[in-house]
């Protein structure tokens, strides 16, 4: 393979990974914009999406589309229950306690997954067959186009929701000023619940579309969450567009790094980006320094 086609290959892999990070980042942003909490269990929503889909389609042999819907619904329910049972009761707790309760949730989900599915990775069949196509000199799995397509749909969908619909704007108002939001009739409780539910849904979607390519195992969550969070910070906390763009950037960087430098350290690349951004410019590429000082973090 020529260098050019290798690069195209890496680019596509990078965009694929980036899609997942973008979706995870969106999930983080949704919850943050409504509650000012960082949900450390975000990665587990992705993991559960993948594994539950495996259960529906491989074990129960339910057709893909219905399985997809059921999976997303199922994980959404998990997210909602998590908010009701663990987040809501602690709404007045200290920051450290809130951080740790989402950590506890992440461990719990991982534990349940380990119990139900064991430690092995599971596979899903690609959505439209496993025959790859030739594109610009590189061999691309069809699944990648599914991933990119669905991600773009999800991103635009959430953009529309948060910027154009009343409900979406109401959710954003809550983290900004919960008291004011309540005074204008927004039920902050419901918005918080909705944010967790939506976030779980997005995570589930990410899990389902990525599993045909990368498989899924019970402890994929933390690294996904870390990289997704790297995207959030790089893009500027609170900026949906920023997180998505940053997600793709990180995915491509990781893929190029893995391909051109070393594949063992590939995870470390995204993590180094995370640390560097946090240390040097926590407001990210698209955020402003003043704004990030005013926020709680």
């Amino acid at each position, binding site marked *: 393979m020529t260098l050019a086609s290798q690069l195209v290959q890496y680019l596509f892999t990078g965009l694929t990974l980036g899609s997942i990070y973008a979706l995870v980042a969106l999930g983080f942003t949704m919850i943050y914009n409504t509650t000012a*909490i*960082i949900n*450390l269990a975000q990665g587990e929503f992705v993991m559960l999406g993948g594994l539950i889909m495996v259960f529906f389609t491989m074990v129960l042999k339910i057709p893909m589309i219905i399985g997809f819907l059921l999976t997303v619904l199922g994980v959404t329910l998990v997210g909602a229950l998590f908010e009701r049972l*663990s987040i809501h*009761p*602690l709404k007045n*707790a200290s*920051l*450290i*306690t809130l*951080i*740790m*309760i989402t*950590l*506890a*949730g*992440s*461990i*719990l*989900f*991982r*534990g*349940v997954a*380990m*119990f139900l599915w*064991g430690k092995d990775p599971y596979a899903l069949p690609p959505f439209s067959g496993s025959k790859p196509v030739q594109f610009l000199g590189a061999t691309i799995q069809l699944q990648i186009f599914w991933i990119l397509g669905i991600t773009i749909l999800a991103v635009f969908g959430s953009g529309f929701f948060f910027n154009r619909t009343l409900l979406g704007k109401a959710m954003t108002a809550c983290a900004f000023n919960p008291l004011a939001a309540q005074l204008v009739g927004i039920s902050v409780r419901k918005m918080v619940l909705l944010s967790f539910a939506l976030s779980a849904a997005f995570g589930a979607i990410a899990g389902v579309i990525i599993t045909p390519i990368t498989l899924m195992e019970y402890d994929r969550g*933390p*690294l996904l969450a*870390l990289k997704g*969070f*790297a995207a959030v*910070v790089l893009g500027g906390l609170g900026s949906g567009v920023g997180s998505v763009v940053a997600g793709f950037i990180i995915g491509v960087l990781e893929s190029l790094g893995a391909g051109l430098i*070393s594949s*063992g*350290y590939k*995870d*470390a690349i995204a*993590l*180094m980006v*995370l*640390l560097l951004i*946090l*240390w040097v410019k*926590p407001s990210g590429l698209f955020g402003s320094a003043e704004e990030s000082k005013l926020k*709680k*973090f």
Partner: protein
Amino acid sequence: MKREDLYPLLSIAIIIGLFPLLAGGQEYYLSLLVFVGINSLIAMGLSMLMGYAGQISLGHAAFFGIGAYSSGILTTKYSFQPPEAFFAGIFLSAIIAFLVGKPTLRLKGHYMAVATLGFGEILFIVFNELAPLTGGPSGLSGIPPLTIFGHPLEGAHYFYLVWGLVILLLLFSLNVINSRVGRALRAVHGSELAAGAMGVDASRFKVQVFVLSAIYASMAGSLYAHFITFISPSSFSLMFSILLLMMVVVGGAETIWGALLGATLLTLLPECLRGLEDFEVLAYGAILMVVLLFMPQGILEGMRKMLRKKG
């Protein structure tokens, strides 16, 4: 050290002194308590960072690993004497903690948590990838036992070494907590704004206590390496960092005694779950969740409250 700290300290010292006799020389119980001691060491440092200074670290397994690998690599591949490797590990951990701590401890809340998480993960990857040095995923074996004047320390002797160090550092920590430094840390935790106004350089002290906690973890790592003579990256994973965090939180982050209690409980727990490994992670998640929801001050404080109600 305050008067009220004297009683628990003496009790612990007495129990430790008598334990090998009570255990009747049974290796199993002795090793178990050695692990409790090693974990207590890390938990004490973490408790000073989290409970007193009010910071958070989700990556402390990294320093435990640096200590363990320093001792392991230097004694097996470079003919260092165990005490030399011990101090090399401390030195390395301290430097890394300083370099990482300075920019990280400036961050607030969630950012600090994620940064320490990321740091821990990076080191885990390094332990796995630096195979020529660390042995990679298959680990590093043949680590020599600790020797004092040529005599290898094993069994009850190692037990006394570990716990002797725990008690010494416990004294050290109590002294720090009740000193100007301890007050400064607690002030930063109580109100960083007022602490600054009173002349406390918050960032300097946060970094100092972070480095101190890294040194404690490194010492624990070295003791661990010489004890089990074989180490692999899986002992220094995110799960262990979380377990360490849990020891502090579940036991009670407010005091160093809580950390000891937490270390004891969470070291003994996996033993009780022998045969139920499938449930292990689930159990941890459930315990942490229950404690955070119902006893956020930790079990020690929870028990004290219950006793106070009855009394």
